[in-house]
């Protein structure tokens, strides 16, 4: 089990990550979302043992990762900026990984490469961003680690590769009980694969829980307001208007769905209809709400 206990990290005395608590079990995918500069990459680098935390602990099966080669053997990391050594060929970097990681499987790499189709003779410096991302992902999976930390792993990938990526990841999680922490700005992608989520803002956690809890915590509605009420006249802080189409008003509510339904009817909402809400909308709403 990966446990982040009250972890914090500063850069030149400026707080980058603060009071972070996360628990990720084997076989679970935990997403981390947040705006640019929220501290996601710093947190993930701490999780990968690249940075030492200034406060708190990061434990993999009760062992800290920083400067612990045995623990790092269990953790694979896909960086957002795959800056491998440009002079190495793919075959060369495979040999390097083979030497570093005890469980690295060249067979697994080759198996994955049947889908991603990278030429092993190519030097890394000649790969495109997307190809580097594919390489980093394949290396991480072939490492056969117990935990996988990924920072923006889908950036630069084409549609077909994104599908392969998702399929492979889910397969690894199911078959090998891989524990995954993934950060991404592609919220629809996160919504499809994650079991739980942490939303970060300015280095702090502003929301955490399972995806189901999150999806249930915010509702989107469409209604007509009677008694001459206008969207502007709705001052209830739990209601957030998002648009007006003719007589119809679209708005969000936070909290218990049944209670909100009852309250909205009492407030004069007619032709009330629940609408499909996306993670992106929930994220924006929570962010707005928490940073008020």
């Amino acid at each position: 089990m990966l446990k982040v206990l009250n972890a914090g990290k500063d850069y030149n005395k400026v707080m980058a990550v603060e009071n972070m608590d996360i628990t990720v079990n084997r076989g679970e995918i935990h997403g981390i979302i947040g705006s640019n500069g929220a501290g996601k990459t710093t947190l993930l680098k701490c999780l990968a043992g690249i940075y030492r935390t200034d406060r708190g602990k990061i434990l993999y099966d009760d062992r800290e990762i920083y400067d612990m080669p045995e623990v790092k053997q269990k953790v694979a990391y896909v960086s957002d900026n795959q800056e491998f050594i440009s002079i190495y060929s793919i075959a060369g970097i495979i040999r390097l990984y083979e030497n570093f990681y005890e469980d690295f499987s060249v067979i697994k790499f080759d198996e994955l490469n049947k889908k991603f189709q990278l030429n092993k003779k190519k030097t890394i410096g000649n790969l495109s961003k997307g190809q580097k991302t594919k390489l980093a992902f394949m290396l991480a999976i072939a490492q056969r680690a117990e935990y996988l930390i990924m920072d923006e792993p889908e950036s630069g990938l084409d549609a077909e590769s994104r599908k392969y990526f998702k399929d492979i990841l889910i397969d690894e999680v199911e078959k090998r009980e891989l524990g995954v922490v993934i950060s991404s700005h592609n919220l629809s992608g996160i919504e499809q694969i994650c079991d739980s989520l942490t939303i970060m803002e300015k280095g702090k956690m502003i929301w955490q829980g399972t995806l189901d809890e999150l999806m249930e915590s915010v509702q989107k509605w469409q209604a007509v307001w009677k008694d001459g009420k206008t969207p502007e006249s709705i001052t209830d802080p739990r209601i957030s208007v998002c648009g007006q189409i003719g007589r119809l008003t679209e708005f969000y509510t936070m909290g218990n769905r049944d209670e909100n339904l009852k309250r909205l009817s009492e407030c004069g909402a007619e032709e009330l209809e629940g609408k499909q809400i996306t993670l992106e909308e929930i994220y924006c709403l929570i962010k707005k709400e928490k940073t008020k």
Partner: protein
Amino acid sequence: MEECKRLFKRDKIFLLCLSGAVVFILLAGFINGWRLVRQLLEMKASFMEIHGEAFVEEFFSDDGMIFSEILEYACISMMKWIFAVVLLAQILKWGVLEGRRGREFANQLPLKSAGYVTYDYILGILFLWIPIAVEFVAVMLLSKGYGLTFMGKDVNENCVEIIKELILVSFLYSLLVLSKKITRYIPGIFLTVPVVFGIGVILGWDISVFWDLGRYSPGERSGYLLLAASVPVLVALSYWCDKKRDIAGNGLFYFKPVHFLMMAAIFAELFYIFLNSEIIQRGMAANVVGVLIAGTVTAGVHYLTWGERSR
């Protein structure tokens, strides 16, 4: 892609500048050396005309010696400059050009960051600096007329010889570590450690050669210089080699027979040193002790080099 192209171009420019600097140092060293030889020979000829042959023989070495001594001086001077340039270039490349990303990639790998540095430097201290310090004291005492004896033997003389051999062992070790570092680790990040270690070896060697300059014949001095010169040559070669992905990915010292051959050489060297030492009385007991000491040290070196694969 633009970033990759830029990086490639940067590497090429870096190598070109480094090659240019090395060629410049070599040329400058030889030209300067040759000028000095000519000046001395001209001065000798003019003194010959004024003061005669007897005077010249008293104050000047013969022509061959002048040439050999100046060449020695020029070679050592050039070696140091080349070392300084390579080291500075490496630090510049590591710190400025590769910067944070290189270090982050290294931190991502399952290595104990303090481990390899500590081991290198402890070994460096044990194999190199302690013998040099002992040698320094021993030679100084001898030059002051304080001869130490143990069981009727001259300790100072033997110390010097043993320490010379130990320096040879440290030289072998440094080459081994250097080669392993290059084959095992990432080029450009960890090379600084063996380069610094190599500089330690060459400086130690220089100190010992210069300190004892008068004690050795030109032939012996050339031998030492050849060994000393081979260190920067090997470092430089390794530096160029780390640019070649094949060597970086799968080097010679991953090859078990070669590794054990090196271990056997170190063991034989240590055993030879021990048996040749006149500090202790020879005999069966000495042989057993010699084997044990040589075996222990070799096992240690083996652990630190081959064994580090699993660290």
